[in-house]
């Protein structure tokens, strides 16, 4: 019964997506050649790219993912540590730095890419910096606000049982903030993807964005559309991973919110 329900829900959700591809397939033959490709052609072209013995697409994907991961991890560590610092024990610094950080957050990250290219030169360092810059803010602000809003009665409770500062942090503030951290991490993972593709499209020697830009230069329509879909699927997979992680770590929160 439960499995049946799941299949039903899944089918309902998938319906618009299937309809979209069917309409696309039909519509593509009615549009002048060279504007859009058809799902059928895209599937064939992408399949060929995947089984390509030289693994060109996969290699570029690996390059991108590795850079995203490095920038993202760096942003996570720095963002979470700074977020906790300004959200808990260093509240006075919060007043000093937060307005400035808010301004930094508002800077258009795409506009910054060329600046980073000048500062770091086109390459890994620059890409990691771009991802770091974009991914840092959601993680930092969510951690900081989560830690700041900690339920003081829980802190009181822990303190009354003799918890020292360390135990108050690990036993109360950290678990209390965990849902906010997850929110930040998930938002940032999306942003990290966007920024990576954007920066690679603007200038790079390899990576998914570069691959995509190359297809545009040679006007290989099926691979242009294919790359877009592929990047989307990757982002969906990452999001799915986060949903699973949250379900695992935040059992108490998930259900409490219902």
């Amino acid at each position, binding site marked *: 019964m439960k499995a049946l329900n799941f299949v039903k829900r899944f089918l309902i959700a998938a319906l618009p997506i299937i309809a979209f591809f069917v309409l696309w397939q039909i519509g593509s033959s009615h549009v002048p050649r060279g504007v859009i490709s058809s799902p059928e052609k895209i599937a064939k072209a992408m399949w060929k790219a995947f089984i390509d013995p030289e693994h060109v697409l996969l290699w570029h994907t690996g390059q991108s993912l590795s850079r995203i991961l490095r920038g993202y991890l760096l942003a996570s560590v720095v963002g979470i540590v700074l977020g906790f610092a300004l959200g*808990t*024990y260093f*509240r006075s610094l919060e007043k000093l730095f937060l307005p400035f950080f808010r301004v930094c957050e508002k800077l258009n990250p795409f506009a910054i890419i060329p600046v980073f290219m000048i500062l770091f030169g086109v390459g890994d360092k620059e890409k990691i910096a771009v991802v770091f810059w974009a991914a840092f803010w959601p993680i930092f602000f969510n951690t900081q606000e989560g830690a700041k809003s*900690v*339920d*003081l*009665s*829980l*802190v*009181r*409770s*822990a*303190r*009354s*049982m*003799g*918890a020292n500062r360390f*135990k*108050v942090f690990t*036993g*109360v*503030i950290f*678990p*209390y903030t*965990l849902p906010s951290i997850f929110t930040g991490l998930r938002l940032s993972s999306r942003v990290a993807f966007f920024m990576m593709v954007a920066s690679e499209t603007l200038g790079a020697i390899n990576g998914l964005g570069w691959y995509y830009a190359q297809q545009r230069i040679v006007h290989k329509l099926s691979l242009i559309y294919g790359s877009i879909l592929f990047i989307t699927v990757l982002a969906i997979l990452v999001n799915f991973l986060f949903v699973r992680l949250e379900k695992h770590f*935040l*059992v*108490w*929160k998930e*259900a*409490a919110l219902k």
Partner: protein
Amino acid sequence: MAATAAVLEGTPKIEIRGLGRSFNKKSNVPGTKTKEKFFALKDFNLAINKGEFVAIVGPSGCGKSTLLDLLVGLSKADEGQILIDGKAIKGPDLDRGIVLQGYALFPWRTVRRNIEFGLEIKGIPAKERAEISDKFIKLVDLVGFENHYPYELSGGMQQRVAIARALAYDPEVLLMDEPFAAVDAQTRETMQDELLTIWEKTGKTIIFVTHSIEEAVGLADRVAVICRSPGSVKEVVDVKLPRPRRIGDVRNTPDFSLVSHHVWELLQDKAPEEKTPRAQIDIGEEILPDTVI
């Protein structure tokens, strides 16, 4: 008073001596920046014997929360001191357990892990912790709910977890801050009787803060009536109702009415109310960010 004198024979378990706690009051008048000292508690004296159940009642803003924070050790007194077994308290310790009004359970911990929190701080190994938590889960009648999260429990059950958590690390004194204020009337009466049973079984010394006269008289051996501005003990009323006691049994007795009426009278002729908005009298929250974290 005769009752107080009798109590003072021998060493009391808890002795509150000339306790005073003041806060800076912000001026309400715009443009003025003068800081006044406001005494939430002043010249507060109370002695409590081992194994005694003492209720503290008073009007809102009489410094009950301030007193409790001092008893827990979360804030420091300006004057006087609190002695436990003749020794001044220096901060929070596991010789005192506290049950707060809003339960303050850790939502990410199951019933069992909530109860074990104090034991973890005490550094008790996992196996022993499980044995102790088992014992207290039985005591508060939550067998079968060990692995439930707080959100899955009713208000009354959550309060039982909070009591079990406070008892688990075996404190000699149990401090309770309006613990049953948030549950419905029927659950409250059940909880009150359960608390009496637990108290009879464990022999803890209990300080029970409440604003309900009925609750205070129904539960306690003695009721300390607090007057406000500044908060101090107005009178300690002896409750000579039979033990073991069930609130439902004593509530309609003449003795109960007499004592309740006396407490009520004491609460009526209160000191002239100071013209400070409640938010500033009830400073409990305001002082927290600095002192707690």
